[in-house]
């Protein structure tokens, strides 16, 4: 039987062929909690008398959303995660280590895995060829304790990508364009499988950016085949042994296929307050911005910071525009320091923070004022997202965000790139 990537991965876990629509109870390979969702998961496990981790080496508790803690309530929540990790042998990712999704792809997720995370952007690990999906605290808590979860095998929306990115256009622009095209519920309950010549040519960071935002189209996960690019990435992480090749079968059944030609794309932004509210950066040009935020699990990797630095090098932010840069993880932070990027950012007038979720989740580190406008490289621009329902968030690539910091207003970044 010809299978999609999702059917293939789930089928391998339950030991038989599965088809979209089936309900299965499946083993879980990696389970993750973060400091916003973890405490509730642990409360639920206490209620069930199940304070344990079935597979502690692949149970990871991340302190990233409010790191370092800005309030005592959150400090206490962090204590509960540390206590569970100490008691069960689960892995604790401390405040210096970074955003869960970046840490998961660096060190934990592998091709063919089933990964569940109590964070909606857990789909990021799908870029490695893992069936990776976000669930609530209780679902993930039960997954941690029992090593199992239940899933409906999803139908798959195939995105076939061709062409090459024109200068100044990136994976982020493609993903915003795609979500604008199919809508914020265009892939609800489905897996998105990214295929085609451009998918094969894409680097891992580009693949992470696409899969990270699969949930913004309503999808359960985003998936890439595991290929040579995946193998090299895992080798760079010292995890070459975790690689295995994985591809969908010829003749697999897709719910729908969407084709995208990268050549035709332009720098793209999402206007407030929904991700599918997209337009070109040129069309939004002239919108004043009070704050620019570069970082997050979507675009806080070293490749993103290099693009931002290329724009910002030797220049200075607009006097009325604040600029905050947050590397996604400790290893990204170190690399950016080694390459001198942090100096470029600080000289350009940026506030560089330690790794983590930073300002994206509205808890600390850059909460917007009433009526203020931010352009950010994150994945979500919902009303209230950055801590203030009276503020406005635009989404963009690192190049567009950096260029907008220089101009003090949204601009097409191409005039700032050499």
């Amino acid at each position, binding site marked *: 039987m010809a299978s999609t990537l999702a059917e293939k991965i789930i089928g391998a876990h339950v030991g038989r062929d599965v088809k979209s629509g089936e*309900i*299965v*109870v499946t083993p879980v390979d990696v389970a993750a909690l973060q400091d*916003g*969702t973890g*405490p*509730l998961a642990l409360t*639920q496990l206490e*209620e*069930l008398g199940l304070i344990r981790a079935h597979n502690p080496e692949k149970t990871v508790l991340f302190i990233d*959303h*409010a790191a370092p803690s800005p*309030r005592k*309530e*959150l400090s*206490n*929540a962090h204590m509960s995660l540390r206590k569970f990790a100490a008691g069960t042998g689960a892995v604790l990712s401390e405040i210096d280590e970074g955003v869960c999704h970046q840490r998961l792809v660096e060190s934990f997720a592998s091709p063919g895995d089933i990964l569940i*995370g*109590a*964070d*909606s952007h*857990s789909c990021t690990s799908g870029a490695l060829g893992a069936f990776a999906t*976000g*669930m*609530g*605290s*209780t*679902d993930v808590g*039960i997954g941690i304790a*029992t090593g*199992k979860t*239940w899933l*409906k095998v999803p139908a798959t929306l195939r995105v076939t990508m061709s062409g090459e990115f024109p200068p100044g256009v990136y994976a982020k622009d493609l993903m915003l364009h795609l979500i604008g095209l199919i809508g*914020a*519920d265009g892939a*609800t*309950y489905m897996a998105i499988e990214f295929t085609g010549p451009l998918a094969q040519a894409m680097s891992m960071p580009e693949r992470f950016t696409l899969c990270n935002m699969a*949930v913004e189209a*309503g999808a*359960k996960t985003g998936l890439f085949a595991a290929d040579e690019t995946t193998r090299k990435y895992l080798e760079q992480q010292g995890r070459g042994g975790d690689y295995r090749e994985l591809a969908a079968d010829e003749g697999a059944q897709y719910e729908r296929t969407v084709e995208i030609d990268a050549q035709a794309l332009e720098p793209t932004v999402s206007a407030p*307050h*929904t991700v599918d509210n997209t337009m070109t950066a040129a069309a939004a040009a002239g919108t004043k911005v009070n704050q620019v935020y570069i970082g997050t699990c979507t675009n806080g990797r070293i490749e993103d910071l290099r693009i931002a630095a290329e724009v910002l090098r030797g220049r200075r932010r607009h006097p009325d525009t604040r600029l905050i840069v947050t590397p996604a993880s400790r290893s990204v932070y170190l690399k950016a320091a080694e390459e001198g990027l942090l100096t470029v950012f600080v000289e350009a007038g940026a506030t560089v923070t330690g790794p983590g979720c930073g300002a994206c*989740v*509205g*808890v600390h580190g850059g*909460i917007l004022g009433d009526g203020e406008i931010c352009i950010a490289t994150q994945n*979500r621009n*919902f*009303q*209230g*997202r*950055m*801590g*203030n*329902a009276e503020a406005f968030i635009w989404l963009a690539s690192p190049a567009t965000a950096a260029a907008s910091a220089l101009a003090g207003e949204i601009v097409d970044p191409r005039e700032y790139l050499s």
Partner: protein
Amino acid sequence: MILKGKAWIFGDSISTDHIAPGRYFHLRTNLPELARHVLEDANPDFAAQMQPGDFVVAGRNFGLGSSREHAPRIIKLAGVNAVLAQSFARIFFRNSINVGLPVLELDTSSISQGDELEVDLEAGTVRNVTRDITVAFQPLPPVMVKILGDGGIVEHFRKYGDFNLE
């Protein structure tokens, strides 16, 4: 079981940030307090003025966004009987069933603010008493009926000691 209450109307794309705003992140370990802010960024008067038993009635893609289970938990904790929407986001839908909050998909366009509703969970209908209109809702998938019937996933686990869904 027949659930009775008044309709509170919300629009399309009500996100988990509307339901449980990030600025109350520190209240996630204090659900009764967090529930005082439920849906605050979509309607600041809702939490203070809604009556236990009322319904949240919305448009498309209700609950999109984050995986925070706190969102359906505080809707339930506030006393909302059920959420009625044109469609739901996936994680919110699953979380709602897990915590025992009925989430019903139907054409909500004929329901207005303050309408008196009667929801018959067994018959699968929503009767708008104010307008004398009855609309059927999409039956829940059998796996969801099972979990909801057990009182949520924790109760399901307590009952069977394992998943009993296939």
